[in-house]
């Protein structure tokens, strides 16, 4: 019973998921009784609730936030249209919508070359080839393949259980940045105390604080701030376990941690990507990944030859 209550306490995670599962289930193609309006309403409500509950951003509304919402919302709507569309040609066009919006997200994350490459390759080449094949395989009216979906209920249920577990893990791994900020304030307050006993009293339970810090260190491992955080944590642990701790050392350790933590907060979990994207990407490709580039080229060649060999219509000779 307690477990159930604990499960239901994540209602802001569950409510959009359930709504979206119902919406997708109603929207998937079927020959009769397809409640498109209800399905679309459910899916839209789920999308809006997800945008309210799941996305975290700093209090100010910046162009980045607006663009993020626009691109991701359009991408998800395009994805729903892709799986709910009976007409395969329209589905291919909605896939192009997904690709274009994902490219917008790439641009928001400082990847302009990838944006251009995806638009040219996906939205240009692949979609056009798909439409060619669709035209070659011209079908008369609706076929039972486009008009039915296989196990729509089970598939949407399984899909949203998977999404729920993704979101749960993400929620656990990336807690709200506000918590980290409060924790740093707490440490700063402790560093201002005069005597060791006061510091310890302000910090609270030893294991709790050290474990919390250990988690933060693990999250930012490998970065400059992470190394500083590790140093501060080591000092703090040594002081806490020492027979005769000095308040000076305590304060120094706490100051190191708070300093590194504030820097992490400022960076907000993002590193600096080189500004000259194409040049830097080329340098990385042809130095670190040279072998992979060669293999990729070979793969393209082999795939081309394979595709020609498969699709070639062999002329049957008269016997």
């Amino acid at each position, binding site marked *: 019973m307690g477990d159930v209550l604990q499960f239901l306490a994540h209602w802001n995670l569950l409510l959009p998921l359930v709504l979206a599962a119902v919406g997708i289930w109603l929207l998937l*193609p079927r*020959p*009769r009784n397809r409640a498109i309006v209800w399905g679309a309403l459910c899916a839209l409500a789920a999308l809006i609730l997800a945008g309210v509950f799941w*996305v*975290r*951003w700093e209090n100010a509304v910046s162009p*980045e936030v607006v663009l993020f919402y626009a691109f*991701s919302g359009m*991408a998800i709507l395009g994805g*729903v249209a*892709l*799986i709910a569309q009976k007409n*395969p040609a329209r*589905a291919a066009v909605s*896939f192009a919508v997904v*690709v274009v919006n*994902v490219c917008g*997200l*790439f641009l928001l*994350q400082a*990847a302009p070359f*990838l944006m251009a*490459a*995806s638009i040219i*390759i*996906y939205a240009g080449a*692949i979609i056009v*080839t*798909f439409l060619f094949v*669709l035209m*070659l*395989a011209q*079908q008369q*009216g609706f*076929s039972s*393949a486009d008009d*039915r*979906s*296989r196990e729509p209920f089970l*598939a949407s249920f399984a*899909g*949203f259980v998977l*999404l729920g577990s*993704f979101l749960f893990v993400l929620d656990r791994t990336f807690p709200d940045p506000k918590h980290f900020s409060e924790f740093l304030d707490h440490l700063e307050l402790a560093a201002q105390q005069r005597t060791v006993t006061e510091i310890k009293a302000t910090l609270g339970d030893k294991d709790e604080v050290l474990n919390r810090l250990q988690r933060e260190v693990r999250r930012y491992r490998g*970065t400059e701030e992470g190394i500083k955080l590790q140093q501060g944590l080591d000092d703090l642990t040594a002081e806490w376990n020492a027979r005769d701790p000095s308040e000076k050392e305590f304060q120094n350790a706490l100051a190191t941690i708070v300093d590194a933590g504030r820097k992490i907060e400022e960076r*907000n*979990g993002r*590193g*600096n*990507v080189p500004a000259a994207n194409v040049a*830097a*990407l080329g340098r990385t490709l042809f130095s*670190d*990944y040279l072998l992979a580039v060669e293999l*990729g080229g070979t793969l*393209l060649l082999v*795939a081309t030859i394979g*595709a020609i060999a*498969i*699709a070639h219509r062999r002329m049957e000779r008269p016997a």
Partner: protein
Amino acid sequence: MIPLSSYLIVGAILFVLGMIGFLTRRNMILMFLCAEMMLQGVAINLVAFARHHGNLHGQVFTLFIITVAACEAALALALILMLYRTKKSLDVSLWQELREPGQEAILDLDEPVPELPREEPLPHLTPSGIAPPQKREDSYV
């Protein structure tokens, strides 16, 4: 500022939508498009991680994903074309004799597809009178 986790959520949603589409749709081309959408979700994750760590390895990975997806598209379209020539349909259920032994066949028993309204064939007029004599061509070039 949008933190990393929000981008990961968008990637996860696209991935799951692609998975649902791949499991339910029966048109081979649509199944393939859904698989490509799953790849898009993964690409968002990789680019977001590249930004998070401040290096370009994630973007390079995405570039390789695009390469492999292009190869995959070429091969899959060639295969789909061959399968279409054999069965004259894109329905993947027609190939279910390739299933594993011991699996039940999937039959569409419950909901019949409604018949499309048949177009009335154009009226066929009986030729009246005598057909004029036509000169036979000697050679067909």
